[in-house]
């Protein structure tokens, strides 16, 4: 299974990012071999709105089975679940540390949104 980790840069040593839709990179790893398959830039990170669902679409296009992040909003969560992507919260400091933690089996899959919905740059509520 391919796992995506929200990160601020590329590769195993990259710092993680606690946001999902606005995470600048997704590092795709093969956890069984603790290897990086690919680091993808998230073009949606600066979108004025709808960054979460678009990022979910991006991961779906890359056949990702699970994502490890810090927080997800309600729309991102809905899209990730619809795409069958399992959500884990609890990123560690770096991508490498996060994989180790994941392999210990201590990260729990998520059932509710961890942050309320935002509306990106614009002020207002989109619920």
């Amino acid at each position: 299974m391919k796992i995506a980790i929200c990160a601020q840069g590329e590769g195993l040593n990259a710092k993680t990012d606690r946001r999902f839709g606005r995470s600048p990179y997704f590092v795709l790893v093969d956890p069984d071999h603790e290897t990086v398959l690919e680091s993808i830039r998230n073009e949606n990170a600066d979108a004025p709105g709808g960054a979460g669902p678009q990022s979910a679409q991006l991961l779906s296009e890359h056949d990702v089975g699970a994502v490890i992040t810090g927080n997800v909003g309600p729309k991102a969560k809905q899209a990730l679940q619809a795409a069958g992507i399992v959500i884990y919260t609890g990123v560690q400091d770096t991508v490498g540390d996060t994989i180790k933690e994941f392999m210990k089996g201590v990260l729990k899959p998520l059932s509710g949104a961890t942050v309320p919905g935002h509306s990106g740059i614009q002020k207002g509520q989109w619920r």
Partner: protein
Amino acid sequence: MRLAVASGKGGTGKTTVAVNLALALRQKNLTLLDCDVEEPNAHLFLKPVFYFTKEVGIPVPRIDFARCTFCGRCSEVCAFNALAVLKDQVLVFEELCHGCGSCAYFCPERAISEHERPIGILERGNAGNIKFGHGRLNPGEAMSPPLINEVKKMCRPGLITIIDAPPGTSCPVVSAVSDCDYCILVTEPTSFGLHDLDLVSRMVKKMGVQAGVVINRSDLGDDRVEDYCRDKGLPVLQKIPFDRELAEYQARGEPIVKHRPSWHDYFEKMFYRIAEKCEGVSR
């Protein structure tokens, strides 16, 4: 002639100016449109009798999964990220959709039809000889421009329309002020007032709409707003000093021109000053 009344922030007395100007000119067969659809309140002063109500919606996509091939084209063309195409489904985030119709137009499989998502209510009425219209946006709704545009359809060419714009400087204000011949900017002589006046006057200038300033509670602040207006060549159309008695009428929903005939003249004069500036551009 279309005349907008705007302000960089709420609570400056924008509606007071719009309503009292309309009342001062009520012999002129004019229309007042309250485009502050998030918090319409001009009707509280004018007390119109409504004769027409309609629900306003925007067309949002519905996907026919018997036709959809999950090609992703719709999501690609949507400028508002309202569509997510996954392996075996397409998610529509209706609250992000602006109803532009691009997705349906570009879908190669003709798998997208549209249905209306209600965003608010439009009401039309009469307040004496003033024609009145306003919109009420549904609570929590963010997509106000389509409702504002619907309210503005009551503008009648050749006749005076006064538009009470929403406060601030975002999209809804642009919708309300666009196509207007003149914009009255209502502010207060404080540093907040000055800051917001600067934002809104620059926005209006960018839109190519002439503007002038009304300073409300003009005696409760300093001269910086007036200095600013002089600097920028913005005419000060009117200064309204604070008046406890008037504030009380206001609080009871009574327009001030009813109690102070002198204000009737002030507003009328202000209108003629504006009309002079608009000459030749009236529509």
